[in-house]
């Protein structure tokens, strides 16, 4: 049973860029942890679920909380915007448009994280 030369027999095109999906899974896994911490630390330990002003300030004084929250912000922003990108990429835009979308999302992402960190700083100073 001979099978003629098939397209599969052409030379190996070699690997291409790493799939964004793998990074999305990694960030997703990190979020499971960080979101869990966030929900417990910020809401579940508080009887009414939300803290009033003094408690918030007191709570944010603890550098560990700040570290976790910033990490959470970084990962959730990345995961969220990669998700948005995946949905946008299903619109069948041109490759050029998609490159511009990716750039735009990076800008939005960095701006979001920058805003978040600045917000923490501003809250602690104002207190």
């Amino acid at each position, binding site marked *: *049973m001979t*099978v003629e030369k*098939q*397209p*599969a*027999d*052409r*030379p*190996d*095109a*070699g*690997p*291409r*860029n*790493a*799939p*964004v*999906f*793998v990074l999305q899974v990694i960030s997703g896994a990190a979020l499971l942890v960080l979101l869990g911490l966030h929900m417990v630390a910020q809401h579940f330990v508080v009887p009414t679920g939300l803290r009033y002003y003094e408690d918030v300030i007191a709570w944010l004084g603890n550098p560990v909380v700040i570290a976790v929250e910033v990490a959470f912000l970084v990962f959730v922003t990345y995961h969220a915007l990669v998700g948005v990108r*995946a949905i946008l*990429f*299903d*619109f*069948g835009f041109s490759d050029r448009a998609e490159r511009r979308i990716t750039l735009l999302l990076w800008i939005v992402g960095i701006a979001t994280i920058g805003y978040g960190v600045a917000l923490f700083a501003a809250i602690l100073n104002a207190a």
Partner: protein
Amino acid sequence: MTETVTNARTTRLVVSRRKEGDDPGALRYDTFDVAVGPSTTILDALVAIRRELDPTLTFRHSCFHASCGTCGMRVDGREGLACVTPVPTRDEVTVEPLGNLPVVSDLVVDMNVFYDEFDEAGRPLVRADDLIPECAPAEGIDQVERYEDCIECGICLSACPVAGSDPRYVGPAALAAAWRLIDEPRGRDPGPVLSLMDDEQGAWRCHLAWECSEACPSGVDPAAAIMRLRGAAAAARVRRLFSFGGNR
């Protein structure tokens, strides 16, 4: 061939029509009332319509028993092979061409687009088959052979929501065919096919809606094949990462 329809009831088939020169924007439907018996299939009804009501109605068919893969269609919005889809017991049934493939005429779609992607995997039609352990090959036969389950009907491509919005996606059929070659290379180097499909428009575009596997009339489960392909691709990347000096 029609069912010599005994206790027949009449069902209204709302059939999507398209001829060359039609306005691409406007969807056009014709309605046909057809006598339907207990075992009348959509294909039987279409054959009867073409013979008795409208000879210009075009649709693909060949084997009449879910073995050739030519009569894939959307019946009431869901993909299926017309030859083994009984006419639903509703008063009105909508019959439309497969999705995500250009329409040639009425219910006929352009399969060239499907095969452009599908043929890339270069899957053989017949494979040596060790699926059936208890069947021994007859004397003079060294290995029991069997046709691939995939009948190239295009139903999975039509059912896929990602293919539904972006034509660049390679599609479940081609990816599943590629996986079967990688999974059982039988002496051939699966490397090129793995690299070909390890791509943003290939295996990594799938969003696990699993609609392709649910719709597949041959039980190929292309979605699971895509996931295994992704596993192999990820593993190959990790190996390449730690192979340092190795070229691939």
